[in-house]
């Protein structure tokens, strides 16, 4: 229950600081538990953005879902890692849907998004 405990510590600390909850004798600090941060450079890397800009206009033409391998073949100007990062960016920005888990048996497959409302 590590994540839950950390979140609730942050929530109760905020509430204590604003006087919404009484302060107990010893307040558990919400800090000092720094988890390793994942590499999120793909969100801001201009080269990834450029590759995504090249792939995005092709998406409306897709008649069916595309595997990562198919997309890599369709964009030989980018290496596989760059395509992978730009696909991640397009999923993050809501331009693509992803299925599969990225394993050899169940590779990532990408398709067009059908709507924005939930």
């Amino acid at each position, binding site marked *: *229950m*590590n*994540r*839950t405990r*950390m*979140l*609730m510590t*942050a*929530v*109760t*600390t*905020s*509430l204590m*600081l*604003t006087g*919404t*909850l009484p302060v107990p004798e010893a307040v558990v600090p*919400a800090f000092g538990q720094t988890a390793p941060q*994942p590499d999120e450079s793909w*969100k801001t890397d201009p080269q990834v*953005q450029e590759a995504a800009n090249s792939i995005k206009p092709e998406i*409306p033409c897709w008649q069916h879902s595309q595997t990562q391998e198919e997309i890599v073949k369709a964009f030989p100007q980018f290496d596989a890692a760059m395509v992978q990062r730009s696909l*991640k960016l397009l*999923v*993050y*920005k*809501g331009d*693509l*849907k*992803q*299925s*599969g*888990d990225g394993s050899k048996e169940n590779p*990532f497959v990408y398709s*067009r*998004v*059908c*709507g*924005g*409302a*939930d």
Partner: protein
Amino acid sequence: MDALLREYRRSRLKFFARYGARWPETLADEFDLLAPCELGRAEADEILNATASLARIYGRAAQLLRRLSDGALLQMGVPGYLLPTVRRTIPGMADCVIGRFDLARTEHGYKLLEFNADVPGFLVEAFSVNTAVCRHAGKEDPNECGERDLVQALTEAVQAGIKYVGRIEGEHANVVVTSGGRYPRDRAMAEYLCRLLEAFPAQYAPIESLGIDAGGLYDPSGSRIHVLYRFFRLQLIRNELFRPRGTSVEPEMGGLVLRFVERRRLAIINPPFSFLLQSKALQAVIWNLFESGQYFAEDERRLIERYMLPTYLDPPPDNTAYVVKPVYGAEGDTVKVVTPAGGVVGQSVYTSYSDQLMVYQKYVDLMPSEMMTEYGPRTLHVVTSCFLLAGKPSGICMRAGEAITDESAWVLPVCIGC
């Protein structure tokens, strides 16, 4: 059985031939709508009561959210670029103008699955379509006053938005409803809202057709927009969605639109705060405060116990089946049902949100029942929903589909049967 299926198909075709043209792009085809489900008046009242109770809990949770540190919001999965804007309220506008609670009907009453507070869909189906189905069937419509409530909630929100950007009464204000232009169903919903807002009036424009510069957001004719109703998720708004006017605009998530809201040059509906209410991590916060007896009053704790499900950011401590879902997911994407032994018994096709923070919510069965479809009888799972319109429960709707409800689900109209 063949005769029953033929009769079912004939009846769906007849309804669609008569009414289908009213909702182009909303219903995929004549069989998108199932035959109406009859609810007892007491059952409909229970759904409205559950919604009102949940609205009360979320109202209290909203007070709490306003006091949370940036660190706590980040731990709830709020993207960093939204932090400067997301607590912002627009005076006179509800924190969530149009929201929808998704509920599961269980042996122990209705339980909240999630609150769609940012960009809820199914408006046309719940209000316009449902009314036509009930009239056609000669049945009472549980959402009879729904469209009126919707107009009132929207009108008040737009008026608050106009005031927020400094327009005085009687001065022209440019009200735009937008959606991604490539999504016909969202566009149909946006155009429906434009019709409801004809008093202002409101115009529809695809988001890609809107212009942007350092001074504001503009409709396709170049007039500055004052109030924007968006069928577009807050976390996906970014500079590069819009057409730059004059000088180019650097790509940036959130970007200028959020700054226009901060500087009172633009009001958006739903307001930014609705994004915090949408977080499934908030369900975990509410449940854990309930469990520890903190923050909520005794009567509120009773409502949480009655209408909410145990939800955590980690697999639950007791050996129960649970559902794993992303805090800011949508359309049943990246959802998994896990058994007490850890086996996956169901999962959505899509995995688009697998990088997001996940919540672990106690699994409740969406009680399966046999329903006639165009393919013959099918065992389907029903999600019951009810809209919350500026704090007022109004508009019951249902969808029937697989154990994990996604965009493939049928629309199940609702009428009062007895």
